[in-house]
């Protein structure tokens, strides 16, 4: 049975997190999840818009939801910030009829509260049988030690996410467990990566990234799995800068969980755009063969 979602990639997945987009589509296809990209989708209304104008921000989200609604589909957004913004706007419109009326006054096509918003983690965790993931594995990631890093927004805010314990989420580990990798206990899994401070306060981001990478080294992780473009960027792009600043020699690849799933499902590193990362994922212990030769 195919599950169908209205797919909302958002700006990051069109640009700096292109590989998240590509790998998500591949993996969803493998898992019989049909993604219908919302036609003519627009900005979710996150960061700049929601700082300046709450109504504008909500209306931007609402337009996307209304478009998805016309297909009678629920929305899936892989970027946790997009997910949070869409879901928060959705909840506020569902809670407050006055707010919904005001928003609908701004829209060409009104929104009728008929959509559920889910994150990629939620879809993979709630809608996909773990058995199915096992079935799709062609090259088990045996011997690979993976630290799952959620960052701030994959489990929080608790009332918007309404998904797992915000202090100790385990969905990523449970999704990745069938791949055969060794999932290490990563105590900083919900710690902050510095997010958008990468622009204004590089020093802060480097400090936080250093702590995160140090802990990953300490728990013996070969790779950190993420589900957020900003987490990926701050740990990958900044890793060399961290090494320069702190005299460290980290060399830990930061992969989207969908890239890890893709590898296990037999896709090549090229298909999964692994080359795009600054810290290259070269060594796949136990499955070295698979990566270097390409599975297909």
């Amino acid at each position, binding site marked *: 049975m195919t599950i169908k979602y209205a797919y909302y990639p958002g700006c990051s997945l069109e640009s700096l997190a292109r590989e998240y987009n590509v790998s998500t589509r591949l993996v969803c296809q493998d898992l019989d999840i049909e993604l219908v990209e919302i036609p003519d989708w627009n900005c979710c209304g996150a960061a700049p818009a929601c700082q300046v104008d709450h109504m504008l921000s909500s209306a931007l989200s609402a337009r996307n939801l209304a478009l998805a609604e016309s297909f009678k589909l629920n929305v899936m957004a892989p970027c946790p910030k997009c997910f949070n913004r869409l879901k928060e706007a959705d909840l506020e419109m569902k809670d407050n009829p006055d707010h919904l009326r005001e928003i609908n006054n701004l829209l060409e096509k009104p929104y009728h509260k008929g959509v559920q918003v889910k994150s990629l983690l939620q879809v993979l965790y709630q809608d996909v049988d773990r058995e199915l993931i096992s079935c799709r594995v062609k090259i088990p990631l045996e011997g690979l030690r993976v630290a799952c890093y959620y960052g701030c927004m994959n489990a929080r805010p*608790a009332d918007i996410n309404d998904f797992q*314990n915000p*202090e*100790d989420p385990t969905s990523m580990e449970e999704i990745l467990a069938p791949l055969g990798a060794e999932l290490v206990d990563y*105590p*900083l899994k919900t*710690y902050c990566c510095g997010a958008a401070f990468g622009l204004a306060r590089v020093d802060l981001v480097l400090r936080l990234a250093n702590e995160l990478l140090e*802990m990953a080294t*300490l728990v013996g992780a070969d790779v950190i799995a993420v589900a957020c473009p900003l987490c990926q960027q701050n740990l990958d792009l900044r890793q060399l800068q961290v090494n320069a600043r702190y005299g460290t020699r980290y060399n830990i690849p930061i992969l989207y969980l969908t890239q890890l799933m893709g590898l296990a499902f037999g896709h090549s590193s090229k298909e999964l755009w692994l080359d795009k990362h600054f810290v290259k994922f070269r060594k796949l212990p136990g499955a070295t063969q698979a990566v270097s030769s390409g599975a297909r």
Partner: protein
Amino acid sequence: MRIGVFVCHCGSNIAGTVDCPRVVEAARGFPHVVYATDYTYLCAESGQDLIKTAIQEYSLDRVVVSSCSPKMHEETFRRAARQAGLNPYLVEMANIREQCSWIHSDKEAATRKAIDLVRKGVFKVSRDQELFPSFFKVNKDVLVIGGGIAGIQAALDAAQGGHRVTLVEKDQTIGGNMARLDKTFPTLDCSSCILTPRMVDVAVNESIELLAYHEVEEVKGYVGNFDVKIRRKATYVDWSKCTGCEECVGKCPARIYDKFNQGLGRTKAISLPFPQAVPKKVTIKKDFCHFFLKGKCRVCEKVCQFEAINFDDQDQIIERKVGAIVVATGYEAFDPIAYLEYGFGKYKDVITSLQYERMVSASGPTMGHIKRPSDGEEPKTIVFISCVGSRDRAKGRSYCSVACCMAMAKQAILTKEHIPDSTSYLFYIDIRAGGKGYEEFVDRAREEYGAQYVRGRVSKIYQKGKKLVVKGTDTLLGMPIEIEADLVVLAVGIAPPQDAPELAQKLNISYDQYGFFVESHPKLRPVETNTTGVFLAGACQAPMDIPASVAQGSAAAAKALGLLAKDELEASPIVASVEIKRCVGCFKCEAVCPFSAIQRQELRDGIMVSNVISTVCKGCGLCGVACPTGAIKVNGFTDEQILAEMEALLL
């Protein structure tokens, strides 16, 4: 019929919003009203005198007092009427304060509403009839549920007052949580040293029947005449023979979770919780005993020279009749497992304050040596975290647990005394030290014992090598703070026992959203409940420390003694009664009655009808509404009276 109407100003409480002289003027025009007046404070002695004089001077046979809520002063004005020779149930209150002046600002509209309310009172009072209370005999015995310090105090005080007391304790010893503590704040005296003499007092007091390892099963009846069923839980040991020598404990091969020591260390399937236990008798925990599990062992039986072991023991139900009940079921330490960010249960060196208390205690599993549970090493850096399970809306616990700030300061002092080269960091939101000598105690912890107080919450604890990294924020500096600790102690909050709601239902008393029992009035009736004859003592009512629990234990006993000082009690005549001719025996009334006041009664020809036990009935009127044939009426609130009120308001 001669009705008098009295309108109270209540200072400016009523007169500020209601034109009282106009209300008086209007009242004079109501049917049967022969006298009406207003006064600044009718509840004052001069106000009551005014009513009494008017009753006599104008030969009033009905009175309407138009003032505050009947909950406030109905009793006052009924008493005044009785003193003036009028049946007190011929007095009605028209509430023009809580239900009028306090909630309105438009004086014209409020005045019109006050006039309507007074008319309503006049219409009702003209249908009132004289009512007379009945009297019933009182059993003088007292039941105390819970043998912690509050229950012990209540039992001793009630016994001293000359009553027989039955003290029911669900554990095998009395002493409660206080027995777990090492020292007590703010005097640092040894908890056992001040508690155990009281426990012994209970054991030797001839007026006190101590039922340890018993639980209340069922409570029926009413004030002065409670029928209580108590379950004696099977101990598998004949306590009349057991001497508490613990020969069997040493030989028992089953090592189990040690509840008394809060899971620090292990105990045996046959055991004594602690050396000073009262009664000093062992019990077998059936679920863990090798003989019960595997059918083999019986070592305890072999070594017991008193032949006290009895594997055939069964639970038993015993019955007691009492006149008053004191509930003192105490608290349980909040289970911090919900705080995943603190890693309790995941990291061995994150423990609760009550576990730490057992660790510091010389009679505890480490013989008073502070050791890390993980490797037995002596910790040098100890972090205390307050408000775990308190003042935390995200965890569903908004309330302050009262005792933890002080307990934390005490533990910091004890830590320094045990390990002089240690440093204690205490994370706090506020330091709540409201009590005699409390603030001074915190000062001592800080100044003499070097306790490092950090204002802020801890966000995360994780293991890094042998250390625990404690991340938080120092909100005074506005800076993140990170401490590498050897041991973390969570100052867990006070939570009601899990089965508190169940007991509340047995006793027909209220409990709040957390499971604390609800007092009758938060200020003026703090140890009473809304069920007459049932009193509260200690932390089952709200979080409290030892001094407050002891004071409440005494207060509850005093209230019980006051109640039981009379041989007979007066029963309110405002109760339901059944007109047998109209009852069809459907027993809908029985189903809705929250007080079990409906009895089935057989008539001569075998027909079953309802009967109201008037001493149990609270006059709530539910049965009257449920009755399909109108056979049940509530005295003072008959259909005729209610309809008259409606008529006065609506027509």
